[in-house]
């Protein structure tokens, strides 16, 4: 086989980000001591550049390059832009968080950039190998980020758990991939799909492989019963890392799910729809019910994430283009809401104080009415109350589930969402109707305040005018 020079253009954003990440590493090495902020600024600049490049290179037609291992299409482009956008916000909050706690290290930003690179490769994967490569690049960076604060025993414990369980999940995924390769004789997702459409009866080994793959993806998403790591890691990690782990990688995991199941395993759609249904119902139940018993906001939000993942799966369960678009809309919206919610914990914290217990939110309205209002927006949006965008996210996936004649599933989802309303509203009650121990007005920097306000108001604005984003998701999926 002659060597053909691959087309580099579709992968230009990834190449740029890889180069920039290395550059940031060098800058940190030589100037990190004297000008720590250079690292931050350069990292942010690389993200902005990369996002602009993604938009500029928006592919009209799906293109595959690097010998059929890398694909650039509408979905990957949109997901990348939003992952970068979310990361941009994350790094902003992180700088504030790290500055206050003397944790500011150049590695933090380098690792974040590499994690983003991993996610971008992940959502652009056209072969099992690329997919695994992207996944591991992302996961390894995240493990390291969780362990960033070496003095904290909680963070180390969380990183340990994350790493061991993540390795287990990776192994499972890899095993599933090897089964697929064994059956189909190819690593390319297109070939794997073609194999299923040609062969008459579906090989049972293929289904076995599917089970392993679903388990691996479910772990990454944090769907029950593979969710056990989520609360511990969210609570133990430094809040800025929790913020990162809880947002951008969810978008990437959605991309992975789409690549593996929809692009690669369309022939066994019936099977994975059933599996995801089980996972979805369990996630919504576990997430919403256990969240009620939490006293730590980070843990509560962790369970809320699990519940959101259950909702997110609903659109994929619908099994239609419109359903996938609804799920995509959901995951993007969720990332924005999670960003705001964890961002709020960072904004309210100070040196030596994490502000991650529910009690820390008592009487916030007395101390800062504006931030209290933003909390209200975030919580109501997460609960799915109109007119915030969280409502439209839930509504669009539910509509698709009903359109797919799974009315019972929609009913269960709505009942569990109502249960979930309780713990979101509890936060609102604490903020507005309870007396706090702390009475001093809150002081925080204007820059983070602007950031969190933009974040929360975007949720409100998208709630008033959701159709543009929804339409974007529909066109991105073709």
């Amino acid at each position: 086989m002659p060597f053909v020079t691959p087309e580099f253009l579709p992968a230009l954003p990834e190449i740029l980000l890889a180069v920039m990440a290395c550059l940031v590493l060098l800058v940190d090495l030589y100037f990190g001591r004297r000008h720590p902020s250079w690292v931050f600024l350069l990292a942010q600049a690389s993200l902005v550049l990369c996002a602009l490049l993604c938009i500029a290179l928006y592919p009209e037609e799906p293109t595959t390059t690097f010998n059929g291992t890398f694909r650039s299409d509408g979905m990957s482009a949109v997901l990348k832009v939003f992952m970068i956008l979310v990361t941009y916000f994350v790094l902003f909050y992180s700088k504030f968080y790290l500055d206050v706690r003397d944790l500011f290290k150049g590695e933090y930003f380098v690792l974040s950039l590499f994690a983003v690179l991993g996610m971008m490769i992940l959502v652009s994967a056209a072969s099992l190998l690329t997919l695994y490569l992207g996944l591991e690049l992302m996961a390894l960076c995240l493990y390291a980020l969780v362990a960033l604060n070496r003095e904290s025993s909680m963070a180390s414990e969380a990183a340990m758990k994350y790493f061991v369980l993540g390795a287990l999940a990776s192994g499972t995924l890899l095993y599933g991939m090897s089964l697929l390769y064994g059956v189909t004789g190819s690593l390319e997702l297109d070939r794997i799909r073609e194999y299923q459409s040609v062969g008459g009866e579906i090989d049972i080994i293929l289904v076995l492989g599917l089970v392993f793959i679903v388990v691996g993806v479910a772990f990454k998403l944090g769907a029950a019963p593979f969710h056990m790591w989520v609360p511990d890691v969210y609570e133990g990690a430094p809040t800025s890392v929790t913020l990162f782990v809880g947002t951008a990688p969810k978008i990437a995991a959605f991309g992975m799910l789409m690549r593996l199941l929809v692009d690669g395993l369309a022939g066994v759609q019936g099977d994975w729809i059933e599996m995801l249904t089980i996972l979805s119902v369990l996630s919504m139940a576990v997430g919403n019910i256990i969240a009620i018993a939490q006293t730590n906001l980070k843990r509560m939000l962790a369970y809320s994430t699990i519940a959101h993942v259950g909702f997110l799966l609903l659109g994929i369960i619908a099994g239609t283009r419109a359903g996938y678009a609804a799920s995509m809309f959901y995951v993007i919206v969720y990332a924005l809401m999670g960003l705001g919610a964890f961002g709020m914990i960072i904004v309210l914290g100070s040196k030596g104080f994490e502000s991650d217990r529910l009690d820390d939110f008592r009487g916030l309205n007395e101390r800062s009415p504006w931030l209290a209002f933003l909390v209200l927006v975030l919580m109501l949006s997460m609960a799915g109350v109109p007119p915030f965008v969280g409502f439209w996210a839930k509504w669009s996936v539910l509509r698709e589930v009903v359109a797919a004649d799974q009315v019972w599933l929609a009913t269960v989802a709505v009942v569990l969402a109502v249960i979930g309303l309780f713990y979101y509203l509890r936060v609102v009650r604490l903020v507005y109707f309870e007396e706090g121990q702390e009475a001093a007005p809150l002081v925080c920097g204007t820059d983070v305040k602007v950031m969190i306000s933009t974040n929360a108001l975007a949720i409100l604005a998208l709630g008033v005018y959701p159709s543009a984003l929804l339409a974007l998701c529909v066109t991105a999926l073709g």
Partner: protein
Amino acid sequence: MTDLYVWVVLAPLIGSVIAGVFGKSIGRAGAHWACILGVGVSTLISGAAFGHIVLEGGAAFESTLYHWGRVGDLTLEIGFLVDPLSATMMFVVSFVSLMVHIYTIGYMRDDPGYQRFFSYIALFTFAMLMLCMSNNFLQLFFGWEAVGVVSYLLIGFWFQRESAIRANLKAFLVNRIGDLGFLLGVAAVLFYFGTLRYSEVFELAPSLQGATLSIFPGADWSVASLICILLFMGAMGKSAQFPLHVWLPDSMEGPTPISALIHAATMVTAGIFMVARMSPLFEQSETALSVVLVVGAITALFMGLLGLVQNDIKRVVAYSTLSQLGYMAVALGASAYAAAIFHLVTHAFFKALLFLAAGSVIIALHHNQDMRSMGGLRKYMPVTWITSLLGSLALIGFPGFAGFFSKDAIIEAVHLSEVPGHDFAYWCVVIGVFVTALYSFRLYFLVFHGKERMDEHAREHLHESPWVVTVPLVLLAIPSVLIGWIGIEPMLFGDHFGDSLFVLSEHDVLARLGDSYRGEAAFIGHAFATPPLYLALAGVACAWYFYMVRPDLPALCARRLAPVHSVLVHKYGFDLLYEEVLARIGRGLGSLFWRIGDRILIDGMLVNGSARVVGWFSSLIRQLQTGFLYTYAFAMIIGLVALMSLFVFLRMQGHS
């Protein structure tokens, strides 16, 4: 044109918002100027519309302003229909409203809620105009409810007073009963015609002939009767027809006489207007017309009788309003829609006049409203005296005055009507004339003539009211005298209303009346040959004899006829029935359902019970999150094995 008509409703709304929201910062003068300008704009445009459509015979205007929403196949719209009927109403409503606004400057001068009051009355004007100008049932209902809300706010304007709170609650609740019927009627219209737009509904109305439905098995109801009677229930509430009349006298708790006027001369006519507007529907059902006729007749006579025993000046006027509304309903029932609207117009002017005159008296006596402590005021308040006399003459239907033309037309129309119940109605309205004259002149003599019964202190401060009060009185007195002359021929017998009123030829009593009509003077001449005129004169004479010549007689009568007097004082016991029986049963049922349904079933078992179960379950399964790595790994393996068993092993068994 749409742009212009939009301002008829928008201008008062803007005025109201300015006075209501920015009242504190723009001050009293700012508030009243904002509202008066707004209502003034409405009046000007309404006047222009009246001139264009009615006087010049221009084409009726219909247009949809915007689509409000969509429910299934039904488009909800906001739109205007300006035809002769609504143009007449618009003009009357905005004109009376404008007078009220000007008068309020004087009447409410010392009230702390000055801006709030202006905001309310401008809002009322907006709602009432929305109601009149609507081109569909939904907007009609919106305006209907909106005037209800404002009336609630106005009656309870002095919210520190216990009696005001009770009165506004009462008005609201009683109107709810009527509105329920109205809403059901609108729903029935939607159900049968599939549209809410007047023009489409009226076009389809003849298809109702003979249509029946059975709500209860075995009993077939005529659809036309059902729809019309349900709609009329709404009118009974809003226009205070028997037996939903109880709220109107109590509504005088508001700052009288302005709110009383708003209620009595404007809002209550909404029901009459609505029935006239729905004439193509009502014409399809003889039963409904008969109901309207009988209810109106009962109201006209029996509410008038109550006016005889009241001592509160504004309550007398209020009962007089009830009785006059009965006359209008009678006209509707006799298919003389034009006569009803004609009476509505003349009544609006002379009743407004009487209310404002009563208000002027009340101001002069420092908010004392008891007629037993008045008397001889004509010396002190000449303008109020003369205008009151003119208003009273118009009310009793003295030949030549406005009320004469409209009331006699109604009586003649009933005389010619053949709707079941017309005999009863005829007797009621004829006797009603005597009663009207009696209570009107009882009020007039007690207030303006005879001994001065007020105390020394009050007498010293007696003087004529300021110009903002007297000018509206004079302005209203002119139409009270003249409008009948001008109006009778075009409104009753001409084509004033064009196509906006629909009468079947076999019901058309006005046409038959028109055959023998020979001009205004002849109409007056004819009155000398019929009983109503003599009954009215007899009423005046009785009042004069009882209250001027032998002031001891009324008390004697009350003693001799104690049972009758007691029935009248207790208003036939309706308040007692509603409050002690119906309300008590309602409250009993409510508290029963609350205790069993809400407290035990819903709160106890469903809400708190399920919440407790979820909470308990949550704390239980929370224990699974042990924090140990091996537990987590184990859980993952179990999940994997479970999925494998479900999807692979079970299926393999199925294959083999």
